[in-house]
Structure formats: structure tokens, C-alpha cells
């Protein structure tokens, strides 16, 4: 049994849209850092066990 072509096309279209949705919160976070001038990766170094 095959997946209908129209379904295949929608899956592909929606998968492409999803890439942008995945990236959206990351992009917004970086944008907020740029606007506010925050550099949390410098201010608050990762807590690591490698001492």
C-alpha cells in the first residue's frame, strides 16, 4: 500500500516549514541577546565537572 502522492507532497512541504519553526525560538533568543547586549555564555560559564 502506497502513501497518496498528495500526502507525500504535504509531508514534504510541512517538513520544510518545520525547519523554520524549530529554528524560531533559537533565532529569537539570539536576537534578544543582540538587542539587549547580553552575553550569557560569557557571563555565566557552564557548570562543568572538568576542573
Amino acid at each position, binding site marked *: 500500500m502506497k502513501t497518496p502522492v498528495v500526502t507525500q507532497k504535504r509531508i514534504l512541504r510541512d517538513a520544510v516549514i518545520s525547519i523554520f*519553526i524549530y529554528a524560531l525560538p533559537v533565532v529569537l533568543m539570539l536576537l534578544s541577546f543582540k538587542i539587549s547586549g547580553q552575553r550569557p555564555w560569557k557571563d555565566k560559564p557552564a557548570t562543568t565537572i572538568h576542573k
Partner: protein
Amino acid sequence: MLVHIETIFRNLNGWGLPVIMLLVGIIEFAYGLYENHWTKNEKVLDIVCFVVPKIVVRPFVAYVGLLLFPHLLPDAKNAFAWVPFWWGFAIIAVADDLTQYWYHRLHHQLPWLWRFHRTHHSAPYMGMAMASRQNIIYTIFFSQIYLTTTLVYLGLGYPVLFVTGVKALITTGAHSSIKWDKPFYTIKWLKPVGWVMERLISTPATHHAHHADTSDDGVGYYKGNFGNMFFIWDLIFGTGIITRQYPSGYGIKHYKQEEWYAQFMWPIFKSKKEGSELAANGPMVGDALPPEAPAVVAGS
């Protein structure tokens, strides 16, 4: 205050949610919400599916993952611990739930995947009993456990704790046979909240429609409403239908009460029921339309 909230979520992700599910399940059972559908075969299947992932699959994946990561990515431990809490929360909520939307949607739209998800839909009732009901292969490849383990290693364990807690409450709430969302559609001052809620998250009404055994009643929509925590994915991709009613029946029309072990372990164990999707020579999709008829596509 924050410490108390943290404690609540830590307990929720540990013993809290299973206890809530058990208590709500007892209430559902006591009120007869499973009607006469909860046969011995269904009971065994539901209980096995409730217990095995919690005590075997998830702890095993978490243990192996946290054992492997230090060797595979020794410098990545806590690499993203600097991410502010609320941004971490948003990133994880989207990554986790959108991935699960796709995992779920593909199991419905790609015929060769359907039988791995069928067990979740074969229950002719809704409720806590069937909320965890999944084939073992579906559970093993469930993206959330791998994503969570990875994010904990990368230093995002704290937002993961809250996202998984909130998500677990919403998804189990959407499966409940207690129609807790009804007041949001009937009480005047709650209606605006209901309007937002049914678009943002899965509710019993929209998720019950996904578990309907037919779409002939104008309520059921088993070829859509794939969202788990968020319903917005269904709105964005056109795979959702918002309803404020509940379907006339649940499950799948061609259900043959297949043996619990076949439903849990297919394709390792096959069903002996003639014509079953889970039988050795069974059809890939039991209610497939004849080739000449146009297929109805979710979201159309």
C-alpha cells in the same frame, strides 16, 4: 516559591504522574467511564504498557545515554547550561513537541508505520488506562526519551524538567475520559479561555476526536488532530479540526480484539486472528480504501 514549584515538578516526573494517572484511572473506572469495554485482554495490555516503559525502556535509555555521552561528546557536557531558563523552556517545548507531532503524524500517514501505532488506537474507550498504551517498538523509538537524555547532558536538564512535567499533564489530561474541558465551552466567562486553550493545547474534545472510530458522526477526526502538547501544529499544517463535542465511539472499526502480546510486541509476536492487521498475512491497513477510490487525506 520557586523551590516549591521545582520540588513539585521533580516529584511529578518521578512518582507523581504515575500516581495521578492511577488515581484518575480509579475515578474513571468507579464512574463506569470504561463501560463494559475493559475486558481481561485490554486490562493486561494497558497494564503492561503502563509499567514496562517506566521501569525498563526509559531508565535503560537514560542510563545508556548518560554513560555513552561522556565518551562520545566529552566537551559538550553542560555546554548549553548558560541558556536562560525561559528561552531553554521555549526551545525545548518546540523541539520536543514538534518532533512528537511528526512522529505521530507519520505513523498515521505512512501505511507501513501504522501497525506500530495501532495499539494506541485499538482501545474502544478513552482514559488513563489507555493513555500509555503503545506497541513496544513505538515506545523504543519515541523521540522524547532520546531528546530529553541529550538535553540533560548538554546542561538543559532544568527546563527539561518543567517542559516534560507540563507536557505530561496536558497529554494525559487530553486522554482522560473525564471531560474537564466542557466548562470552558459552556460557562460564559470561561469561554474566551476555552477559545485560546483549544487552539493552543490538546483538549479532551480535540484529542478524543482523534481517537474516534468514525468520522461519520461529524465529530470524529481520526485522520488528523495529531498534536500532543500543542494543538497549534495541527492549525499551522492544516491537519486539525477543532470540536467542542465528543465522538460517538472510540477505537478502530476493524478491531479484532487481538491478543495483548501481539499488540504490545508486533512484529515480534503476531496475532492469530484471521484477517487482522497484526496477523502474519494480515493487511497493512485494515480499512484501506480500494485502489480506484480517492484516498481521504488528513487536513483536506
